[in-house]
């Protein structure tokens, strides 16, 4: 069974498409990244899964339950962190968490552990939310989403407002949840964090799914930037599979290498290489390349 499964899920506002025929499958126990720029359709997808929006066409199932017919049952089993969470300013952090836990109808058995890891002290929780910084609000948002130990957590831009130390603590929490078999659906436009924590990623653009990839697969497809210095004649790379944009001047060669790096290494084996830099794979580049490809295929 999939934690999330959508088939042709579509949302249009009158004639304006917000999401076009989205079909994705999120496996149980994985951290699934949902990537795209602002306005791509990430929040629309999440709101459809939560029953806030009604699909124009298509179907969706969360934890085996229909997102329209069984919306309340779906929400009983998940935790949700909205992007830029709004809280009740007149309540203290503790009152806020108590109220939301009571609405969940499940005991907040993870709260103490989450508060400790996110450094939310008792004193902090006794303060009113209106006195909280943005980072502290986000921590409360994370705790309220996960305190009742949901089977599936849907997190919209979860690390926004967290300092690097807290981001690391948050990633550790996600790793632990995954190890315990929980599923995380993770929307973000911060590629580095998706690269760090996610198993697979779906990329969405203008309401359409561009790709669903393993992070490792996406990185393997990316173009590596190579810079090398050499003594003597430069290696001939023009006809080597996967190599492009070769530029040689003053004993320095730069090029791009796509896919399997083996042919490139074989081609330079006979040259006297004095220095070689292969830039580490970054998801940003793979992501941008994928976007460029889509743009070329379907001009807007």
């Amino acid at each position, binding site marked *: 069974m999939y934690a999330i499964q959508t088939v042709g899920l579509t949302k249009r506002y009158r004639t304006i498409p917000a999401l076009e025929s989205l079909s994705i499958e999120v496996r149980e126990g994985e951290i699934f990244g949902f990537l795209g720029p602002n306005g791509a359709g990430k929040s629309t997808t999440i*709101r459809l899964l939560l029953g806030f929006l009604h699909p124009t066409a298509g179907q969706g199932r969360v934890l085996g339950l229909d997102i329209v017919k069984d919306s309340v049952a779906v929400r009983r089993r998940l935790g949700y962190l909205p992007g830029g969470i*709004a809280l009740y300013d007149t309540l203290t952090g503790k009152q806020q968490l108590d109220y939301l836990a009571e609405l969940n*109808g499940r005991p907040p058995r993870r709260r103490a552990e989450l508060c400790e890891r996110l450094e939310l002290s008792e004193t902090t929780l006794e303060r009113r939310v209106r006195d909280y910084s943005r980072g502290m609000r986000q921590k409360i948002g994370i705790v309220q989403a996960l305190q009742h130990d949901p089977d599936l957590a849907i997190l919209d831009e979860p690390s926004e407002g967290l300092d690097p130390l807290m981001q690391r603590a948050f990633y550790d929490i996600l790793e632990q949840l995954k190890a315990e078999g929980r599923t995380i659906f993770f929307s973000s436009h911060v590629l580095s964090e998706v690269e760090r924590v996610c198993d697979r990623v779906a990329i969405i653009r203008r309401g359409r799914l561009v790709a669903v990839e393993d992070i490792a697969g996406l990185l393997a497809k990316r173009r590596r930037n190579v810079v090398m210095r050499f003594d003597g004649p430069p290696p001939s790379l023009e006809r080597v599979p996967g190599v492009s944009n070769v530029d040689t001047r003053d004993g320095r060669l730069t090029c791009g290498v796509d896919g399997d790096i083996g042919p490139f290494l074989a081609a330079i084996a006979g040259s006297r290489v004095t220095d070689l830099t292969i830039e580490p794979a970054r998801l940003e580049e793979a992501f941008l390349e994928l976007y460029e490809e889509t743009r070329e295929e379907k001009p807007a």
Partner: protein
Amino acid sequence: MNGALFRHTWHSQRIRLALVSFGLLVWGSLLPFIYATFGSRFKSLLESGLLPQQFARFGGGDVFTLSGSVALSLIHPIPMILTSVFAVGFSANAIAGERQRGTLEVVLARPLARRSLYFTLLISTFGFIAIAIAMVLAGNILGSTLSGVLAELPLRRMPLVWLNGVLLFGSFAAIGLALSSSFDRAAPAIGWTLGIVVVMYVLEVLGSLWPDAEFLQPYSLFHYLKPRAVLTGGAQAFDFALLATVIVVAMAWAIAVFPRRDLAAPI
């Protein structure tokens, strides 16, 4: 109905409810005192022709009789404003305000059906109004007791006056909550609800003070609040039924619209 939301709603409104209740209690006790102290003098003035006869007809209330004082204690602008804190302010803001602030999606991300949320808020609003009206009438009884005119007050008919008042302000609250469930922002919901209440109030008062405008009164829901008639044994089931019908229609609207609405991301 959801217990956690119900408790949260009452907890968040407790100070406002206490202040409004106290204000209405004081106001309610004042009018029997005015009646007992100055009622006969006002009546003499009215009969002498120095005061216009319309003075005795303001919204069906006056200070020349105890039943008129009870009516005035409900229809005067002061109790109107105080009760509207819940009948208009709370009801119209309850859903649209949470939606505008973004807290509605945090609540609805829980296993809470929209209908359940609506009914919890509706019941809470009716609870606030029921207490507010009860405080006015409790004030009437207190004022009558302290002024020594309690014997003139038909106490066994007071629950019916209370019901009449709750149905009137409850109908405004039901309209407010229906509008609140239909808008994404609080301002239009509050504006429309307040507009309806003010227009109806003007129609009723205008019709009561100016004979040529009497035909406007049946178009106002205030026309169906008749404490004096209830206290003097002239209660009509139609008045109660009409107010109850307005509540049912507003509820039907909200139940039909709210669960089917798309709740897009807050702006």
